[in-house]
């Protein structure tokens, strides 16, 4: 059960503490050696649709406690990669080892989720007829089994936790509003809230700040810094300001495989990245 902590209370002050030993960017097709403490290890993943390879022998290692940003051109395969990790898409070849033990490519979505993989979708998807509160209640970390669900009680601790997340997402006033009536940006926040309250080990965020104001973007960045201490995160974004603010190790995907990997600065100045992604 998640005990209440206030994520916003933590400032985003630990950019420096995030420095990790840079790993050499894995060349296409070349397997990456998984180190100890590895939470997620994608190995040679290929996904193709009618001959088109959306992912092409993609390999990637994410350590426990890592914050990883992923950028790359539209269609590079970022969302597809998340689909593979969460079990939505089965790769043609390759494995996705979680916690060194579980091959996620063999698991169903709910099994993956129960291992502690949470996801925010690129296109916000919330349960429209349910209220904001109920959306969070559903996402709230708890036993997911049939009987457990049937017996579930919303005790004060859990209620407090939901209230807290409502606060974080700025949706306090809208708690009783059916989620279908939220604006685009509000849905984004609700999704983030649902992800937070799930208390997963690995959080996948697909374009979390799309449609947010600059201020909200900054707030999101702070939030991420805060939770990264307890969670491992993979963030996909196109907003380079945001990526810079996260200041995390960054992987650049291109045509379904890793183009390069490194610190934000290094990546930003990489001519290949400028060529295919950033533009001049």
């Amino acid at each position: 059960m998640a005990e209440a902590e206030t994520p916003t209370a933590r400032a985003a002050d630990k950019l420096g503490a995030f420095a990790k030993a840079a790993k050499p960017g894995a060349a296409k097709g070349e397997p990456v050696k998984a180190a100890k403490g590895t939470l997620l290890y994608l190995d040679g993943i290929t996904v193709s649709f009618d001959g088109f390879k959306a992912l092409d022998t993609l390999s990637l290692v994410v350590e426990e406690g890592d914050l990883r940003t992923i950028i790359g051109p539209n269609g590079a395969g970022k969302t597809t990669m998340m689909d593979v990790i969460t079990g939505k898409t089965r790769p043609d070849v390759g494995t996705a080892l979680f916690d060194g033990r579980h091959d996620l490519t063999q698991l169903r979505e709910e099994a993956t989720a129960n291992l502690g993989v949470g996801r925010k979708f690129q296109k916000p998807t919330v349960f429209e007829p349910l209220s904001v509160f109920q959306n969070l209640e559903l996402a709230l970390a708890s036993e997911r089994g049939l009987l457990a669900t049937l017996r579930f009680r919303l005790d004060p601790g859990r209620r407090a936790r939901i209230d807290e997340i409502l606060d974080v997402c700025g949706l306090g006033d809208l708690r009783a509003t059916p989620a279908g009536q939220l604006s685009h940006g509000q849905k984004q926040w609700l999704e983030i809230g649902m992800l937070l309250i799930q208390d997963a080990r690995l959080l996948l965020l697909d374009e979390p700040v799309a449609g947010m104001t600059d201020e909200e973007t900054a707030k999101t960045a702070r939030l991420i810094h805060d939770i990264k201490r307890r969670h491992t995160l993979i963030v996909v974004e196109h907003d380079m300001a945001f990526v810079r603010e996260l200041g995390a190790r960054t992987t650049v995907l291109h045509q379904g495989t890793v183009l390069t990997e490194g610190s934000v600065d290094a990546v930003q100045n990489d001519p290949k990245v400028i060529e295919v992604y950033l533009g001049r």
Partner: protein
Amino acid sequence: MLETRALNLHYGASHILRDVDLTAERGKVTCVLGRNGVGKTSLLRAISGLHPTSGGSLSWAGSDLTRLPPHRRAQAGIGYVPQDREIFPRLTVEENLRTGLAAANGQRRAGLDESVFELFPVLKDMLKRRGGDLSGGQQQQLAIARALTMRPGCLLLDEPTEGIQPSIIKDIAGVIAKLAESGEMAIVLVEQYFDFARELADQFYVMDRGQIVLAGAKDALDEADVRRHLTV
């Protein structure tokens, strides 16, 4: 010139737009800013006719559109790039683009305008792929391209940069500027990405809780003022 007068809009019982007055001139980029949920999308939906208004009027190029259904507005020249892309998922990219020809008067026979592919080369490669299979950013590009095939006189863009890679955002900015400069088109741009908006806009409207709280030409507005309205 696009002109709304005292536009009001309700979702059920909740009052979302309150007496919105907005003017967008040909040859200019009119930028609408505002926090999440203030009603920007609702405003564009009201203009495109996708959601009925509960008061006020709307005119384009001198003719009153208030009572026209959306397809008539589109045929009158209103093009719309919606926030959530609204690609026709099971039409191919090419077919998605072709749907724009319904409104492009006299162009139906002429076929697609190849120039959109210069802006979005990836679409050219994916002509036969189904719209729904595209990645998010590709869909966004398709949505813009589709609206352009309508050859609209007035283009409504709802956060067009969302989910698009930086290099293409730059291109889009270039195109918007060019379209505006040609003087043919009135452009209404809803944007959260302030720098992008500032770079392009000729004119700003800032919304809050369904109302225009600030309006004026780019030079006339104080950035801090604007930003104040964009924060909570």
